[in-house]
């Protein structure tokens, strides 16, 4: 099918349609199939991929509690333990053991621990993708929190728009470490909702409006299209994947807030670890990568782009009008300034010629006598 399409579009081998098909075909050929299920109906609805370095066992415990409280329990959880050193492994094991063995919840029997060695931030997610059994996949970090209807909202969206990327709103909250007080951290700000209520692909080209835990991807994104988190990216790997998947699969979105992304105030945030300049450089790299691709934009984009372009043209025209008016005003100001200078010069000349006149000099004694008499009459004024 793909070969046939490629052949049929080869009349315009440098055209966008052929290039897009070629890129998709190359990706699909290279895609590593995800594990098969004996019966696709046996797949859980959702695979939750949680990467952890074992640094924050207590926040992981809280995430697990939130997952245990889900109103939709049709999910599996893969805890991706990434280069966890021995001194952290014990605390992590304790948390996992408690959940796996003790917490009698829908999580029982659905949690798998996967040890991941080496690679960057994205390596554990890609390892998780290749072991996930769910029909949709979502990444949640070990310090994130989810509301009890988080999975249920994804499920509702999947029923409405099968095969699309599923997107809900993520709130955020600052958190600080409290090493001396259990459980070692506490909220430090009110909850904010800085991200767009509805998914908008053009808005996402400007900045990422969807943290990882707000987007669930159909497994076909990885299985058939061969998408993965880019392990070369120090940051923004989630943004990169989301935009690519959204352009290919479309997005079903809800304004419901279903999760809380916790922003560490002091240390441990990916922003601080990566450094602001690294973020900016990666942002430029992503833009360059996007520029090199053909983009499949969703219905409605024509009008949206037309509106943005019309706004930009109107703004440019207005800017030009303002610039013209400013130039004219500067000319007029210059003319008036010159005129004023000339007038001042003329007035100075008149005063000087008057003061130098014979009549002015001859009447000086009279003026002095008049001044003296005025002072004697009424005092100095």
């Amino acid at each position, binding site marked *: 099918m793909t070969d046939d399409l490629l052949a049929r579009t080869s009349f315009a081998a440098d055209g966008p349609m052929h290039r897009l098909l070629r890129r998709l075909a190359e990706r699909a050929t290279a895609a590593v199939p995800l594990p098969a299920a004996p019966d696709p109906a046996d797949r859980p609805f959702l695979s939750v991929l949680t990467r952890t370095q074992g640094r924050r066992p207590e926040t992981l415990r809280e995430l697990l*509690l939130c997952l245990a409280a889900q109103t939709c329990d049709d999910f599996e959880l893969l805890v991706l333990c990434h280069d966890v050193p021995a001194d952290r492994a014990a605390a992590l094991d304790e948390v996992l053991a408690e959940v796996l063995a003790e917490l009698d919840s829908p999580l029982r029997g659905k949690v798998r621990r996967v040890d991941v060695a080496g690679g960057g931030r994205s390596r554990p997610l890609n390892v998780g993708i290749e072991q996930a059994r769910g029909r949709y996949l979502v990444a949640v970090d070990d310090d994130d929190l989810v509301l009890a209807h988080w999975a249920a909202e994804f499920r509702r969206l999947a029923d409405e728009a099968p095969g699309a990327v599923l997107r809900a709103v993520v709130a955020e909250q600052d958190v600080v470490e409290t090493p001396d007080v259990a459980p070692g951290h506490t909220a430090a700000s009110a909850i904010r909702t800085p991200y767009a209520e509805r998914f908008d692909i053009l808005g996402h080209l400007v900045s990422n409006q969807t943290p990882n835990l707000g987007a669930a991807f159909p497994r076909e994104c990885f299985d058939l299209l061969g998408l993965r988190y880019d392990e070369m990216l120090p940051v923004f790997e989630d943004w990169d994947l989301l935009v690519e998947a959204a352009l290919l699969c479309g997005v079903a979105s809800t304004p419901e807030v279903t999760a809380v992304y916790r922003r560490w105030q002091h240390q441990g945030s990916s922003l601080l670890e990566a450094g602001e300049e690294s973020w900016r450089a990666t942002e430029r790299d992503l833009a360059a990568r996007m520029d090199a691709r053909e983009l499949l934009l969703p219905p409605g984009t024509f009008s949206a782009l037309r509106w943005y372009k019309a706004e930009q043209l109107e703004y440019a025209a207005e800017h030009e009008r303002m610039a013209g008016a400013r130039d004219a005003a500067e000319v007029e100001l210059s003319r008036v300034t010159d005129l004023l200078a000339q007038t001042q010069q003329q007035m100075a000349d008149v005063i000087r010629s008057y003061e130098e006149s014979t009549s002015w000099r001859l009447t000086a004694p009279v003026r002095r006598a008049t001044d003296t008499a005025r002072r004697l009459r009424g005092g100095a004024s």
Partner: protein
Amino acid sequence: MTAPVSVRVAVVLHRTDRAVLERLLRSLAVAVARARAEGSVSDVTVHLGDSTPNSPPGSAVDSAVIMEKSGAQRPLGTGFLHDHREAAAGLDVRYDAFGENLWHSGGTNRLLDGLTEDAALLLNPDLLLAPDAVDRLVRALGGDRVGIADARQLPFEHPKPHDPVTGDVPWASMAACAVRRETWEEVGPLDAEWFPMHGNDVDFSWRARLAGWRVVHVPGARVVHDKRLTSAGSVAPSEVEEEHGARAALLLAVKYSRPDVAERHFATLESGTPAQRRGAAAVRSLLSHTALPPLLDPDHLVAEFVGGDFAAHRF
């Protein structure tokens, strides 16, 4: 209070879905087993009180039928208690349909009537308890003059301040807290007339503190409270909650000797949302028909009114 202690758990239901109640009971069974294993808890009885009007009468848990939010009636005994015999075996669960809406305060008072256990554990039905939550809450009651121990709620931590060392907190949420029997006997019951739903926790905590009891927050005792957020990021109140919130703000100011605060709140709430106006009107009516009880805290030792809050919040 010497460990292990006996505990009576009080859960007031109101149009509670069976799945929600099962979630609570499952986690409670695990948390009780953990507390027993740790030696902090001995006997535990769970008292479910159904405040749903017109709910089928009954007092036997095996034959209990609860009315859900949708109006559907579901037998409780064929749910968690039937399917999870092993977990449920650790819990002595009792059920009582009140036949009328006693609200949270009236229902809790009914369930804690004649409290003989060493401690009471007050829980909302829409919770999931961490496995160590009961152990930590009950142990906290062993602290010097600690009368009430307040759990940490997730995913939305309450912004009221607490002392990081002692845990002392201005008030405890009745959604998830433990109360010593002596405190309940001395300070209880909840003020069901003035604070049937909201404000009962602030009122009870302040009365306990005036009586010399300490109220402490236990950040390690975690519970998930199934709440939703508005698009602005605040917890979404129902109309009834908004009305009762307005009512509580006014009556707490009246009861705790702050007529100036009450007048300010009246001015704001009487020009507020329809639910707030209803709450303010209900208070006007109550005050015009009821003789004021003795006002509390005339020297303003415990009661705090900061904006619309009852403490200077951390954020």
